[in-house]
């Protein structure tokens, strides 16, 4: 008796589960179709984590220029955002920290029109305040006994690091290859690492908790940030206006203040 009940339960569960999934998908579509009224609209922007500060500022400017419109952001690693959009996440705008991730969406026909490059970023050496290890160049990072932390080659900042290493002929022996540039920065801020390779904008955003040591070889790996409207965006017009603001003088001023360079 008991066995039969136990055997039936997962089957019921699966049937219910599948039915539930189908139902909720349809519900989502209905919602999306019902929402775009011109008075109160929500623009959903998926942006690389490194754009958080600047995009929030541009977003509030956009909201005050467009009464009734609210801009909602999802900030994460570019490849995470790509995966979410591929799985049907309702994004109107996608801003990537590198062209590689944007190209994935273009290849999947998930981008409307052509992506526009709106900013560039380069690597710099982040060191604790006062630069206790006296680092002045990329080659200094190869000194013995120095805890150097970089991004793993699989993530954008790490592939930039690899490019810099290849271009300069300097091979780093990091104590850790982190998942994201934020992890690298935090290891330097916490004092665990003596130096880390991060973006210029990360050092700028970290205030006086770290210092940046620029190095010439960073020009080998210039990271370009593209932005585009996602195919089937429920707010395609607003998306285009938002992109225009990012690439226009308002956006470019905010980006420049955060340390981004023009493409």
């Amino acid at each position: 008796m008991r066995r039969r009940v136990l055997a039936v339960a997962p089957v019921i569960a699966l049937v219910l589960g599948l039915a539930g999934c189908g139902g909720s998908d349809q519900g989502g579509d209905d919602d999306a179709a019902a929402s775009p009224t011109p008075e109160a609209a929500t623009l959903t922007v998926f942006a690389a984590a490194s754009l958080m500060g600047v995009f929030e500022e541009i977003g509030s400017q956009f909201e005050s220029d467009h009464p009734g419109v609210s801009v909602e952001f999802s900030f994460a690693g570019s490849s995470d955002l790509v995966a979410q959009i591929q799985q049907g996440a309702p994004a109107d705008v996608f801003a990537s920290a590198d062209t590689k991730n944007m190209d994935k969406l273009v290849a999947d026909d998930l981008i409307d029109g052509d992506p526009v490059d709106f900013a560039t970023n380069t690597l710099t050496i982040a060191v604790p305040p006062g630069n206790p290890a006296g680092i002045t160049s990329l080659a200094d990072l190869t000194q013995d006994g120095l805890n150097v932390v970089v991004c793993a080659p699989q993530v954008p900042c790490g592939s930039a690091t690899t490019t810099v290493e290849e271009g300069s002929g300097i091979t780093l022996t990091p104590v850790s290859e982190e998942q994201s540039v934020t992890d690298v920065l935090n290891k330097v801020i916490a004092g665990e690492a003596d130096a880390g390779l991060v973006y210029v904008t990360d050092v700028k955003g970290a205030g006086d908790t770290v210092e940046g040591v620029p190095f010439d070889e960073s020009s080998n790996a210039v990271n370009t940030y593209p932005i585009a409207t996602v195919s089937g965006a429920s707010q395609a017009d607003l998306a285009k206006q938002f992109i225009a603001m990012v690439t226009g003088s308002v956006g470019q001023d905010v980006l420049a203040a955060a340390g981004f360079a023009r493409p």
Partner: protein
Amino acid sequence: MTIRRRPHAGSHLPAWAFVPAGIGAALVLLPLVAMVSRVSWGNLWPLLTSESSLTALALSLRTSATATVLCVLLGVPMALVLARARFPGRDLARSLVLLPLVLPPVVGGIALLYTFGRRGLLGHTLEVLGVQIAFSTTAVVLAQTFVALPFLVISLEGAVRTAGDRYETVAATLGARPTRVLLRVTLPLVAPALASGTVLAFARALGEFGATITFAGSLQGVTRTLPLEIYLQRETDPDAAVALSLVLVVVAVTVIGLTRRTGTESTP
């Protein structure tokens, strides 16, 4: 030792209870089924036997085994003290031991960083002694022990309290010294709970992610355990991430199988 308490399980249960129970079961099982359906069986073997996968697996097994040994060495006395000893603040101590269980692992990682890190509470002392823990395999083991210890302590402490101290009292009146009573009477009585607690601690250590990535860093062969490898592979090779996830699912199912077995023997 098993006592049949429920001759007709479900007979007193209202029929509607099966609906939410079924939905709950689907919520737990469906994602796993969905993940397994995405496994690319054709190149599963090359994905699992790639150099980085094998290194991560070996590191995970090594560190989890070490952490489990530490959990037993520290956790068994902790459980015994909490269950048997009388001291002020025991109830508080019991609750505090559970903290790593309910804390988000990343919080555990930050706490460990400010304890064993270079600028941490013990960091300076350790540095004077020439010990650097951050970015080392030791850090991984510490993080795993931190999160896994409560699993062993809870399973064992509950069992020791349920077992009562009658046999121990008898052994003591027969002239057995405390250590002998512990090894010959108490521990054999709670052996099934100790076994399931140990297996659970091992499983928790194997799955540890948040505290490790926050505290230990991520370097192949040194600190990049299987969960960290999965998280990283996701960036470039989702198939490899799914394949490695399957390994952890298989381990988890095996662990549940083992604890169910020992668990049914221990619960009265």
